[in-house]
């Protein structure tokens, strides 16, 4: 077998930057926890510094990332629980790269931009622990390690929703926790079984993703069982229809910061997992079950869009729009063409940016008006034009208007899927129209018209809020106008996965519809 990971550490830095990405927020969380109760400003400073440091490390990693290389970079591998074949193996490739960077950027913004109102110290400690968990999940290349981080993420998120959320917070938090844990239960059994079955081919027990992927061959039926054990956990996390019902509750009840993180990076654990541990590890099973996933994705797109249209609560509307958007990502992932999968990876980032920003904006509306009901809001554009403009840009990005980031991802997904799953695309494309419907309609109701008495005192965007939103809007426009740097880094890794699918199954991905150097022209089309 050809070793496709021959040069595992091509790009190197003088210190294990990926381990630092996980440890800095973890240490920050502990420091926050032990800091003095009487000096809240120091607590906040510690939290901010550690999250900014993490973000900076992430950007540094991005800058030193070797573009065009498909394999894992900055990898570091150490023995951990040697008798079980478990190691600390972290690495980053084009698929996880931007998710890590996005995580690094989102957390400091959330810490600056969202006010927990009470028990700030614990809030910050949980938030940083969450960051460490998310970072770890994206970076792990060991099944055990991945599961560990994937699961540990639940605890801080549970407490964030339960402790700082709105009226139904405990119900929503518990639902979130249990739903995800049921999925994880299957995945844990799947992980253990995968490692044990791979033992035969490897000669020793190992939970290392790369080792298993390279060395182990699963019988088709076994691979399918294992794939489904993994896929259930990820399908809950994405969330894929019909396992999505926890999401609207969790999103609506979570504090603004929690919602931003949940939409921004947490849901991506599901789509990322499907790609990394589903398609990559069990190509045969993934290909075999593609129609199921395509169908569920399309149902999710339409269902999410229709449900979003009918919502009275602005935050719930955004939550359902997430279900639809994540459907697109799954659609792309299971289309098995490099454009669609790459577009899916890009859409993970785009959705994180635009929906994260939407939640921030909805949070700001709630701070001012103490309601999120669309019917209570009216004519905000008159009293807060800059706020409305910011909302407009973010919303258009979410709809997928050309020139903004959402378009690039959705377009790539649709065009890439067209060749391999035409009829699914035909239905899914209506989801794009529906997105325009529910978002524009909501915008119209909230921002247009004459403000009534309660809304006429709506405060304009403050400087701090503006500064928090600026990076989001910057990313939305940059990625929309010039997505090439991003796609250049994503594509090699995506192609690698597809090559693996082709090698293992004999499936032949159709030739790319778009040539590589045409990416710049898509926006004009």
């Amino acid at each position, binding site marked *: 077998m050809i070793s496709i990971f021959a040069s595992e550490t091509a790009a190197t830095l003088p210190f294990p930057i990926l381990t630092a990405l996980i440890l800095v927020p973890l240490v920050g969380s502990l420091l926050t926890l032990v800091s003095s109760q009487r000096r809240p400003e120091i607590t906040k400073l510690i939290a901010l510094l550690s999250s900014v440091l993490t973000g900076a490390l992430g950007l540094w990693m991005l800058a030193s990332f070797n573009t065009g290389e498909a394999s894992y970079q900055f990898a570091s591998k150490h023995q951990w629980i040697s008798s079980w074949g478990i190691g600390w193996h972290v690495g980053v490739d084009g698929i996880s790269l931007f998710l890590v960077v996005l995580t690094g950027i989102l957390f400091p913004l959330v810490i600056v931009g969202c006010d927990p109102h009470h028990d700030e110290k614990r809030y910050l400690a949980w938030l940083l622990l969450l960051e460490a968990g998310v970072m770890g999940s994206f970076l792990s290349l060991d099944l055990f390690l991945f599961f560990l981080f994937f699961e540990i993420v639940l605890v801080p998120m549970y407490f964030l929703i339960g402790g700082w959320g709105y009226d139904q917070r405990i119900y929503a938090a518990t639902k979130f926790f*249990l739903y995800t844990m049921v999925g994880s239960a299957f995945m844990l059994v799947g992980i253990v079984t995968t490692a044990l079955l791979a033992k035969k081919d490897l000669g020793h027990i190992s939970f290392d993703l790369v080792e298993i992927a390279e060395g182990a061959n699963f019988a088709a039926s076994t691979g399918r069982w294992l794939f489904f054990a993994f896929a259930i956990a990820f399908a809950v996390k994405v969330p894929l229809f019909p396992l999505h019902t926890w999401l609207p509750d969790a999103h609506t009840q979570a504090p603004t910061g929690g919602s931003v993180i949940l939409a921004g990076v947490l849901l991506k654990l599901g789509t990322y997992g499907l790609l990394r541990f589903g398609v990559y590890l069990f190509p045969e099973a993934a290909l075999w079950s593609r129609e199921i996933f395509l169908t569920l994705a399309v149902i999710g797109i339409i269902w999410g869009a229709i449900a979003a249209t009918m919502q009275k609560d602005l935050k719930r509307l955004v939550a359902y729009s997430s279900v639809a958007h994540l459907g697109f990502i799954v659609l792309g992932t299971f289309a098995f063409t490099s454009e669609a999968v790459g577009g899916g990876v890009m859409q993970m980032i785009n959705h994180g940016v635009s929906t994260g920003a939407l939640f921030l904006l909805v949070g700001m509306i709630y701070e001012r008006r103490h309601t999120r009901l669309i019917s209570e809001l009216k004519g905000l554009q008159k009293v807060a034009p800059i706020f409305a403009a910011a909302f407009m840009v973010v919303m258009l990005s979410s709809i997928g208007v050309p020139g903004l980031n959402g378009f690039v991802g959705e377009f790539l997904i649709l065009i890439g899927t067209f060749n391999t799953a035409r009829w699914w695309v035909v239905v899914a494309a209506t989801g794009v129209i529906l997105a325009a419907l529910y978002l524009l309609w909501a915008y119209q109701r909230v921002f247009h018209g004459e403000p009534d008495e309660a809304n006429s005192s709506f405060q304009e965007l403050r400087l701090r809020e503006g500064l928090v939103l600026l990076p989001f809007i910057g990313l939305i426009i940059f990625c929309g106008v010039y997505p090439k740097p991003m796609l250049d880094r994503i594509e090699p890794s995506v192609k690698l996965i597809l090559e693996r699918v082709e090698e293992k199954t004999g499936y032949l991905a159709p030739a790319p519809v778009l040539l590589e150097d045409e990416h710049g022209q898509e926006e004009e089309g």
Partner: protein
Amino acid sequence: MGDQVMQYPAIDWLAITPIIILLGGMMINLVIASLTRAWPRAWYAIATVELAVACVIVEMFLWHDVNTDGSRIIINNAISIDHFTLFCWIGIAVALALVSLSTSEYLRRESLDGPEVYALYICAALGAMIMSASNDMIVLFLGLETLSIALYVLAASHRRRAESQESGLKYFILGGFASAFFLYGIALIYGSTGTTSISGIGNVLSTEVFVKGDDAMLLAGIALLIVGLAFKVAVVPFHFWTPDVYQGAPTLVTAFMASVGKFAAFAALVRVVTVALPTRAEDWRPVVWVLAILSVVVGSVLAVVQTDVKRMLAYSSISHAGFMMIGIESIGHTGDVDGLPATVMYLMIYSVLVIGTFTVVSLVTRTGDASSEIGSFRGLGKERPALALAMTVFLLAQAGMPLTSGFIAKFGVIKAAATNHSYAVALVAMVASVIAALLYLRIMISMWLSDEEAGDEKREAIAIPVSAGFVVAVSAVFTLLVGVWPSWLIDASQAALQLAK
């Protein structure tokens, strides 16, 4: 057989030093304590802890001895000294030390201070140690009775609480039944194999071929034996005593039962099935399979609907016992090397975990063990954040969250099951553990997220005595340490695989 002169077996005094230390220490403590005035402060507890610590030290040396000299069976085939025995002994001694420490202030809070409870703890630990080391059914039974009788008294030791008396009596009556089953099982097995030695039974069963249908007595014996031990480890459907006894007994006695009691009973079960009955695995494994599945499911489901924390934890201990039964089920597969280490590791981890948990419960239930309702945890996060944090660690560990010891324990068991292709049982157990997670979440919600209710401010403030605080801290540190760095415990539990035969 000598006909005139009685033959005395050679006794390896060194190897049974831990037993002698506990036995001698208990008697000396009792004698001195009864001749002197009441000892001030925590001295009864300290004396007990010293004995336990001495035990642990000696056991460490013995571990080293076994490393170099190999395992052996001493005193005329009665006691096995191997890594498995020592692993259990260390676990039992550590549990004894921890429980004694946290009991110290508890007894004074309840005005029950005196040497008796500690003497009973030591006595029970002694029985537990004999049980886990015994290589003879009769010695095993003696250990079991020493443990059980001490536990009956301990359960009833809160003299002013009717619930405690009731729990002692219930435990006594039902425990008596179980002992009778167990003893009858021994008799039937003796009848069909002609020996009570555990390794002897193993030898006989591996050589003797039963003509088809001729092994009814043996099978009945095995069944009764499993019933007796299943009662002691509290697995469904032999669990009915557990909630009542756990709830009624003084909280720290409950901790002792759940740690030392489980340790001993599981150790005995493991030894019996691995040494005496490996050739009969096809007969007992399906039974254990059913017990395991029933326990994880029923334990988890019934735990969730309780409102009393001690009762919840009792049901959760049933579900944990179910997990350990999965390990035992794995032992029943030919050539298995994962089941036994997974089971003993689970025992060690759970025993520390449950002591930490119940210590917190004993502090939160306040004077008189009055209210172990879940509401008594309300606001703990505000009132005593450190205690609530430690409790959160324990609860997350019991739920099997990563980075805690509980995850390592569950992972080990699931891995053992998957190695033997028992995927169904692994899946059922994991899904049941999600149900059980709801219960731990409920306690956490109460601690951190519930709003205050009227009358809360009138409740007694929660005091954290130094000794109990120490126990909680040690247990929490152990829980996290094993979660992050489990290799040493895994290696130690794998060493336990070499049983003396």
